[in-house]
């Protein structure tokens, strides 16, 4: 109503008051006069300020936006206050999630083939937590469902985008002959019928599934 607040403070207030990460689009909507290019610099300024004045939180760039988060040294206190909120990810869940994240879009059969165990329960639990979602169906017999990661995944793991994931150590990528390998598992053979080392076809990197992960289900 009076003089409009200083953009930096307004930006800080905006990020502070949002529960999820504030996207640049949201920031622009609220602060049209702030050019998007200035945002990262202002966030850095704010973070310097927060650190200098000993605040127990800071702004992180996650899931394509900015979010206030507590510093790690306070995790014990916060978990004591709100034990129900604690994130619990079992080792199977983490393994399954890793495969989905790096290989997305991927079918359950592909994940199970890689882990060599039934993944139904784990997939369900990951879906329920919103860490993965169904991104489509594979154009194959039975039209199996394809899984991909969500922006909730990025938020949970403190990643700004999928391209911030560490590069997968060089290992034969599987998409190329996923179908064949399924057969392998079935008849327990695993040698001759294999398509062989043309698996290097897919050069390592996950193919920016960023778009798939943009929106939550």
């Amino acid at each position: 109503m009076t003089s409009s607040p200083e953009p930096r403070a307004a930006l800080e207030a905006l990020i502070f008051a949002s529960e999820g990460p504030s996207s640049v689009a949201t920031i622009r909507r609220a602060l049209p006069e702030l050019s998007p290019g200035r945002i990262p610099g202002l966030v850095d300024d704010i973070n310097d300020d927060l650190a200098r004045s000993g605040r127990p939180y800071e702004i992180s760039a996650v899931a394509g936006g900015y979010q206030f988060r507590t510093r790690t040294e306070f995790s014990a206190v916060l978990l004591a206050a709100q034990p129900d909120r604690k994130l619990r990810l079992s080792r199977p869940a983490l393994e399954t999630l890793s495969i989905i994240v790096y290989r997305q879009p991927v079918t359950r059969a592909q994940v199970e083939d890689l882990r060599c165990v039934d993944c139904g329960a784990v997939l369900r639990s990951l879906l329920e937590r919103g860490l993965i979602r169904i991104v489509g169906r594979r154009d194959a017999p039975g039209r199996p469902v394809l899984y991909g990661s969500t922006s909730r995944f990025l938020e949970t793991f403190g990643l700004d985008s999928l391209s911030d994931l560490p590069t997968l150590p060089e290992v034969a990528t599987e998409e190329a002959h996923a179908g064949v390998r399924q057969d392998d598992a079935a008849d327990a053979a695993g040698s001759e019928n294999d398509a062989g080392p043309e698996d290097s076809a897919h050069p390592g990197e996950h193919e920016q599934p960023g778009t798939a992960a943009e929106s939550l289900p």
Partner: protein
Amino acid sequence: MSTPGETSGADPSPETGRGEARRRRDPAGAAGPGGRPGTWAVKLEVFEGPLDLLLHLIRQNDLDIEDIPIALLAEQYLDYLDLMRELDVDLAAEYLVMAATLAQIKSRMLLPAKQEEGQDEEDPRAELARRLAEYATFKQVARELGDRELLNRDVFAGRPDPDGVPEREAELSVSLFGLLEALKTVLDQAPVEAHVHQVTIETITLQDRMLFVMDLLRAAAGDPVPFEDLLSDTPLTRVRVVLTFLAILELARIQALRLYQHIDQEGHPSGPVRVRTAVLPEQLPQEPDERPTETESQHDE
């Protein structure tokens, strides 16, 4: 005991965390196959399938994944399966499939290689080695992911205002029943007219009400407005509520506005009915408006 970056050491999972990692490490170091059954039982639970078990055996024996002594590995693997059967552990089918695979590889290793026929004759172990390496890679990746600063484990986001989280809504043609239900609520809650001690003849028309509704929706700049908000215009009289209601129906009929309702997990409409202009938000003039507040506060005429 375990090579860097491999399986049995620190467990990245916060949930199964230290406890299981420890349980797992103890028997692994101490007992060989066929060792103390009680210890194994605990251990077996935490193997994530045959590949996990094979990797463990490879680490334990310090084997090279590219040059696995398949006879040794198969033997130890089968010892495990025997043990599990003895302990009445429900064996997942995958374990048996893997046992068959190992047996087959072993038998193929015994055959003389037919060098002359195909130079590209693959080592029978190659496929298994590749799968193991791939699985090991993802175990490693999983551990790295688990070591990150995780939200709601290591760091916590602020929770400024639980009401501020926007709801996900899908467009839906609300049933007339739903609308009437909402109207009934409003009418039920409207003060009984007799209470006011004076009769006010309102000179409002359907046209007025349609303009009023469109004003409110425009003020909301494309954001959904609760259906009931549109009806709560004051003074709250039955005539006014009914006319507003009719105006909304008329506007919906001529497709000037759209009605929305939240759809729950089962796919049933639930929650408040919301209304917005039929014009897409992008088509609205991009004015940073201060007007939406009017919807809430008052509407004087």
